[in-house]
């Protein structure tokens, strides 16, 4: 029999998170700080709207691009929050989570041999999606001393004459880093100079704790070369509804819609009706959740300072990314021992790129009570490690 598999797919490494997941699943009594999704339930009025749409029998396909009402609400939202103007009829596509938008966005823009710049540590899907789209992924290793922000110099150094797209994943999973307006202005200059396009994954845009989020599309000359990706998972605690969107130049959105139309048809109808309600009446829910995350963030930063564990202060998403280099072991060794000895599950930084070595991703999408319990155990663990080192 012939080999049934695609060489390109076989060559892709499975997600580093998967491997750790299998170990953690064996330990039923472990405290996990390993999730990348909110601990809140979807606000009830949003769920209620989904249920109501089912009761009304709204169980058909929507148009390929998604419900017109939802696209209009998204445009209103982006105008309200970011001051951006998009045309709901030609510049918005509703997708199955932000993940689908990343995939089809790259597929719509890539020609063989094009290079895609991926700052790391970052979300696990950019690299494989770029490879599947036929691009050559080029990593930019972000540095702790820059608080894991992308600098103009780092960007400039990674650009070749084949570079076409920069992926911009801020606020960042797993580091919690953000890009402020000044940071974005510095890189926008380089982007314009080299005529690049930007895929800006802003799924955590509502979760920033100092100033409000700035989108690169707000900067002069950037909107026409940016595909802005966002969704409902993080802002409204709607991960399981699988709903996101892409906004951008209409030529790009048109081609993305073509792929979406053939691969997906349309995003789930129930989720789309619920999302309309979220955008119309969900601003207070966001504030409520953001306030709770911020309290936990402050608590974790304080706990790490007390333990003497090095950690830059993250201003976005719901992760902290402490450094464990002082213990002289790999992230994976550290995480495995922490799990085995103290039953706390965290994700090794290496799951988000090789330059995540020496770091851990700790999620604070958990109640304060749970975080307190986990911090107590981590402190015990590192105290023991430091004693071992002395001997």
């Amino acid at each position, binding site marked *: 029999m012939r080999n049934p598999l695609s060489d390109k797919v076989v060559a892709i490494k499975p*997600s580093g*998170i998967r491997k*750790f*997941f299998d170990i*953690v*699943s064996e330990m039923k009594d*472990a405290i*996990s700080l*390993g*999730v*990348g*999704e909110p*601990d809140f339930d979807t606000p009830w009025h949003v769920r209620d709207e989904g249920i109501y749409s089912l009761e009304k029998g709204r169980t058909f396909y929507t148009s390929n691009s998604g419900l017109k009402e939802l696209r209009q609400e998204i445009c209103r939202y982006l105008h309200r929050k970011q001051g951006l103007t998009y045309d709901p009829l030609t510049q918005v596509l509703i997708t199955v989570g932000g993940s689908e938008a990343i995939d089809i966005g790259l597929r719509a823009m890539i020609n063989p041999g094009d290079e895609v710049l991926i700052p790391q540590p970052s*979300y*696990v*899907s950019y690299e494989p999606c770029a490879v599947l789209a036929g691009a050559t992924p080029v990593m930019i290793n972000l540095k702790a001393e820059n608080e894991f922000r992308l600098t103009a110099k780092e960007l400039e150094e990674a650009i070749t004459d084949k570079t076409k797209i920069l992926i911009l994943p801020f606020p960042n*999973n797993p580091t919690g880093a953000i890009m402020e307006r000044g940071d974005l202005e510095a890189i926008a200059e380089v982007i314009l100079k080299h005529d690049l396009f930007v895929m800006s994954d802003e799924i955590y845009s509502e979760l920033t704790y100092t100033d409000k989020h700035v989108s690169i599309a707000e900067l002069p000359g950037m909107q026409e070369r940016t595909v802005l990706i966002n969704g409902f998972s993080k802002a409204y605690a709607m991960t399981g509804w699988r709903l996101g969107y892409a906004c951008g130049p209409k030529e790009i959105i048109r081609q993305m819609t073509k792929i979406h139309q053939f691969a997906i048809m349309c995003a789930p109808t129930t989720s789309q009706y619920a999302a309309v309600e979220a955008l119309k009446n969900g601003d207070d829910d966001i504030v409520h959740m953001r*306030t709770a995350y*911020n*309290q*936990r963030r*402050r*608590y974790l930063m*304080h706990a790490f300072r007390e333990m003497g564990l090095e950690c830059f202060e993250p201003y976005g998403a719901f992760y902290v990314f402490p450094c464990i280099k002082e213990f002289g072991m790999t992230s994976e060794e550290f995480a495995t021992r922490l799990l085995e000895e103290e039953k706390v*599950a965290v*994700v090794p930084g290496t*799951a988000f790129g090789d330059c995540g070595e020496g770091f851990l991703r700790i999620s604070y999408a958990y109640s*304060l009570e749970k975080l307190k319990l986990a911090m107590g155990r981590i402190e015990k663990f590192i105290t023991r490690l430091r004693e071992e080192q002395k001997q």
Partner: protein
Amino acid sequence: MRYFVGKVKNKMRDELLAIIEKNSRIDLKELAIILGVEEIDVVNELAALESEGIICGYHTLINWEKTDVEKVTALIEVRLTLQRGQGFDTIADRIKKYPEVRSVYLISGGYDLMVILEEKTLRQVATFVSDKLSTLDQVLSTATHFVLKKYKDHGTNMSEDPDEREMITP
């Protein structure tokens, strides 16, 4: 108008109240950490809130159904007829003095006062309504409802939902 005195301080106050409304036993040091302020600021703000009568008490939410103690909760709708010089406040002031009365609310709509009563037995509730409440001159009529089960109280679910998320997700 406190709001104009200092928006930042006001925001800290609102956040502080929201936290201790749910957990009045949280320790001061921890409260300062999660609010991102100094412990002394928390102490001062709490003292101010108490002296201004904004914080009126620190109660505990108890699920009495899980104890051996017998409790009966009754919600009593009270219709009033008012006389000159005796408004709702006067009669409410009188009703609230009974120690068995937990809450008294003035209500818009079909009746005037909602009186919430907690007693050990049905008979005690009945006695209160017939001997004390109904005999007040201003009370026209009452309708008593007994609570059969509490599913949610003071914004708290009486049974906790488990965390059903996967242990590790990207």
